[in-house]
């Protein structure tokens, strides 16, 4: 029977091993010989260094060799160009079969990395490039650290994915810089859309003892190390408060985690517990507790869902299913936007910024047109004021975004998108007018959220050029773009749409021309179940709270407020017309819109009394659990139907849409992994969405 480590290595058979290459260097100032270890997986920076079992064992060998020597003054570790190391190799994690294997991987990481801090000679980490997770921890184990001011990303993203920084991170970091700053990296940033920090902040936080510019970072780090070795530099670090401040920091972070997740994801809580206990623990105790936490978490469904979600946004998003060959795409050298409202303005700004081509807005009303163009110019000024763009770029953007009262200005446009009132006849007429002036190949795109793209194209001479191009609000924040193929849409138009989406840096998901496409259909359904429960007689607060255990970014009623009750009602009506058996319109919702209410909550975060009054009545109150169950069951059923209808290629596309268009969390894997592991899929549909395990690709 092979050891768990050997078993793990077999499971990681495809590991791209990051080798630890050792080379002697003469330290300046006669400080002696140092062993410089370079982490390098043999690929360029697009495939960063990671630690799998093979990589850890390679590092272990390098440390063995250094430990055996008596003629060296120091050991230093750095990365290949632009990359230090981005942490554990996660590709093999879903393959781990049992807790013993998972525990062995965690322990192997500790056993190897901790030696960097326990050699007889001083050890240095020269963080030359991106460092994440286990890469950061490798640096933390060293006695001293330097960081390049050019490091673009430095983070402990474990809690974001469903893990803890369990190769020493939860113990070493708070002991180095204090619990408050450590929790910023361990908890706060991962839960804040996996925010990362840069080189100068690494120095400011006290994680690195010195910072040098990228041009000759390693050389200057070696000079600095030589001075430390010789005693010419004494590294002084502020003493860490191991008293009340530590507990207070943990309590604050606990409050944050509870507020965001409502217990939905186990990893951040576990990380917090480790940091809390690290205060009193010895290193050995701390590391052993991390091993246990990793072993437990690696076996959780939430981690598997997290890794699947990570692959969705990192990989699937870049290779959209169903996209035609990109060689078919036509050039887009000028863009037209029909309408000059808020959405049109956001689109004009995005197109101008990302495509660097002229963008013309049209509107029938001069005042509205001016307002639209002014909005874009104002946003450009804001970018300029924030230093995000220079004066030249600002000048260029402003000169590129213009307005016109007539559609003649579209004559030489290659791509015209409409963002006018959501009414079929209006949109059909707009397209007819545009078609009259543009070339036969120009793409006509619609930002409709729920109307049929096929019908919109039906009266055109060239319906094959029409595509749905559905953005999510706020356009600058949410990456999703639902690309809708009408019945007659041809490959060239679709290819052009995908190429354009890519330039816009959006995540394009190909959807069939089905009512409300993906995100609005599912969110409306989900919200509809909650509103339905309210209509039946549940207190709105109770119903709104019912889905909190999922850890969604916002509650259903807050989402209703953000989308706008009127818009939400419109989509509900569309879907209720299309699928009367599964979608209905809440009469209370309708009355709220008729009453002109746009806000659900008051300034005190309580439900507005008038809305509460509108949401009262009915005789049958449901429990929170009942509401959660019915909402999830409705989702599972609807997704199954959507897949059968071919709305998207695979369940993975549904999840990608929910993550990038609605901000649904990684620990749910979007939603289908959660529906599978919580048993809802089988209960409702008789089968899982992912019977063979979650596969993002």
């Amino acid at each position: 029977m092979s050891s768990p480590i050997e078993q793990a290595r077999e499971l990681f058979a495809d590991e791209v091993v990051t080798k630890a290459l050792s080379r002697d260097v003469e330290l300046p100032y006669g400080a002696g010989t140092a062993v410089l270890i370079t982490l390098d997986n043999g690929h360029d920076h697009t495939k960063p260094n990671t630690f799998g079992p093979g990589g850890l064992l390679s590092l272990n060998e390098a440390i063995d060799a250094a430990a055996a020597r008596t003629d060296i003054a120091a050991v230093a570790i750095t990365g290949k160009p632009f990359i230090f190391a981005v942490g554990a190799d996660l590709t093999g994690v879903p393959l781990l079969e049992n807790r013993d294997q998972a525990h062995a991987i965690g322990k192997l990481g500790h056993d190897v990395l901790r030696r960097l801090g326990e050699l007889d000679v001083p050890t240095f980490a020269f963080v030359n490039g991106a460092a994440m997770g286990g890469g950061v921890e490798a640096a933390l184990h060293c006695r001293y650290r330097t960081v390049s001011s050019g490091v673009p990303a430095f983070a402990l993203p474990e809690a974001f994915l469903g893990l803890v920084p369990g190769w020493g991170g939860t113990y070493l970091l708070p002991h180095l810089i204090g619990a408050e700053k450590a929790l910023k990296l361990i908890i706060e940033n991962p839960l804040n859309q996996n925010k990362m920090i840069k080189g100068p902040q690494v120095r400011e936080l006290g994680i690195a003892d010195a910072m040098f510019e990228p041009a000759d970072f390693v050389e200057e780090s070696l000079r600095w190390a030589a001075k430390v070795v010789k005693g010419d530099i004494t590294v002084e670090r502020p003493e860490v408060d191991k008293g009340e401040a530590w507990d207070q920091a943990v309590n604050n972070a606990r409050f944050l985690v509870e507020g965001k997740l409502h217990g939905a994801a186990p990893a951040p809580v576990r990380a917090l517990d480790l940091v809390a206990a690290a205060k009193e623990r010895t290193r050995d105790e701390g590391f052993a507790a991390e091993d246990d936490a990793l072993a437990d978490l690696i076996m959780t469904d939430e981690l598997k869902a997290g890794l699947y979600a990570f692959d969705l946004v990192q990989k699937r998003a870049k290779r959209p299913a169903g996209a035609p060959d990109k060689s078919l795409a036509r050039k887009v050298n000028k863009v037209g936007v029909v309408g000059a409202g808020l959405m049109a303005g956001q689109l004009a700004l995005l197109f101008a910024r990302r495509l660097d081509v002229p963008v013309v807005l049209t509107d029938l009303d001069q005042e509205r047109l001016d307002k639209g163009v002014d909005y874009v110019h104002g946003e450009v000024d804001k970018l300029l004021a924030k230093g995000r763009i220079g004066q030249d770029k600002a000048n260029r953007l402003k000169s590129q975004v213009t307005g016109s009262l007539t559609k003649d200005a579209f004559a030489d446009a290659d791509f015209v998108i409409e963002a006018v009132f959501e009414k079929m006849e209006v949109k059909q007429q707009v397209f007819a007018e545009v078609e009259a002036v543009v070339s036969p190949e120009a793409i006509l795109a619609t930002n409709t959220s729920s109307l049929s793209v096929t019908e919109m194209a039906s009266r055109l001479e060239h319906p094959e050029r029409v595509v749905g191009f559905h953005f999510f609000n706020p356009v600058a924040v949410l990456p999703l773009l639902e690309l809708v193929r009408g019945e007659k849409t041809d490959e060239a138009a679709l290819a052009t749409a995908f190429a354009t989406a890519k330039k816009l840096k959006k995540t394009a998901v190909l959807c069939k021309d089905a009512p409300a496409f993906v995100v609005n259909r599912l969110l409306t359904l989900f919200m509809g179940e909650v509103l339905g429960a309210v209509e039946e007689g549940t207190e709105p607060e109770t119903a709104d709270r019912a889905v909190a255990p999922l850890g969604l970014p916002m509650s259903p009623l807050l989402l209703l407020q953000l989308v706008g009750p009127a818009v939400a009602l419109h989509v509900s009506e569309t879907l209720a017309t299309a699928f009367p058996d599964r979608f209905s319109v809440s009469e209370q919702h309708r009355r709220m819109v008729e009453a002109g209410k746009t806000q659900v909550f008051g300034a005190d975060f309580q439900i507005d009394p008038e809305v509460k009054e509108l949401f009262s009545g009915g005789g049958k109150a449901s429990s929170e659990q009942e509401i959660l169950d019915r909402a999830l069951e409705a989702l599972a059923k609807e997704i199954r139907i959507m897949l059968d209808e071919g709305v998207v290629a695979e369940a993975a596309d549904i999840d990608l849409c929910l993550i990038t268009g609605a901000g649904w969390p990684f620990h749910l894997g979007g939603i289908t992994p959660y529906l599978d592991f919580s048993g809802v899929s089988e209960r409702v549909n008789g089968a899982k969405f992912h019977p063979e395990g979650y596969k993002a690709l």
Partner: protein
Amino acid sequence: MPRTARDVVFVDGARTPFGKAGKGLYAETRADDLVVRVIRELLRRNPQLPPERVDEVAIAATTQIGDQGLTIGRSAALLAGLPRSVPGYAIDRMCAGALTAATTAGAGISFGAYDVVIAGGVEHMGRHPMGEGVDPNPRFLSEKLVDPSALVMGNTAENLHDRFPSITKERADAYAVRSQDKVAKAYAEGKIQQDLVETLVRSVEQGFGLASADEPPRAGTSMEDLAKLKTPFRAHGNVTPGNAAGLNDGATGAILAAEDVAAEMGLDARMRLVDFSFAGVEPEVMGVGPVPATEKLLARQGMSMDDIGLIEINEAFAVQVLAFLEHFGIADDDARVNPWGGAIALGHPLASSGVRLMMQLSRLFAEHPEVRYGLTTMCVGMGMGGTVLWENTNWEGNAK
């Protein structure tokens, strides 16, 4: 109003350790990265010099393509983090590239166009072998403008033995052994290291390393060792890899400034640029170039070789140094000549070498306050020589 020429001083120099081309230290390191390291080191060693006060960055390279292209003086200045307001250019006179960068930019200071310049050179002969991408005009041969041997430097060295029959292979080898010995001694005394900036080297197989010392020197080389070497340029010839400089990688740089500006900023002024001269010779004996260049210079200054206390002559080939010495009646082992050895031992990354000669001369001046004048001189492919006359700012006003 008549223009007054300003005095120009050599402030400081620095260079990367030199490597062997091919599989040497810098096999996987970019040429422009070497220049960047040198420029940054010069600024680091001279914190009194505000970077925005650098008026020009003149960097030489013989092969100006790839990582030695893109107007390397400017691109290296940007990569080194100099303010964007600091301009730069690339310059080429083959082996005398850096020397020419210094004289050209120095002349600009004297003219009043600059206050402070950085001048240097680089050659990564591993990444850019001699003759890479050249396309000689066929007229050179059809009209017999040059001898076919003129483009191969080793052949020109063999030709020089023909012209100076008294310079035997044994004399050349003996000179080479002395060069190796002098470099070994200078290293032991820590002379050479003063101007080196340790430089990061990349290797995919071995990881990052640090170049801390020159790679080419072969301490302990004997006449017997050299006698065994082949003569690749001519069967039974005289020129061997042992009595010539190798193929090398490296970069050099120096700060030159108007003397009054250096004083105002508190910069060092190690030696003063007195004059310089370039001269052409038949390309097939390019090694003799320093002779007419130096004659021209001395004549203009009304000086003779007796006035010169130190000579830093580039050792592309031992025969070429010996031809110079023989012409001026200087002994092969004269103590004034290359006291710390030369390119036969240290290496000769073509366009970088001229500034190495200068930094070494400036260090020697400091140790020899009795010496007033010194030369840096070198031969140049296509048949040229270049000589620069320097005055020791430490000169104590007695002796020569």
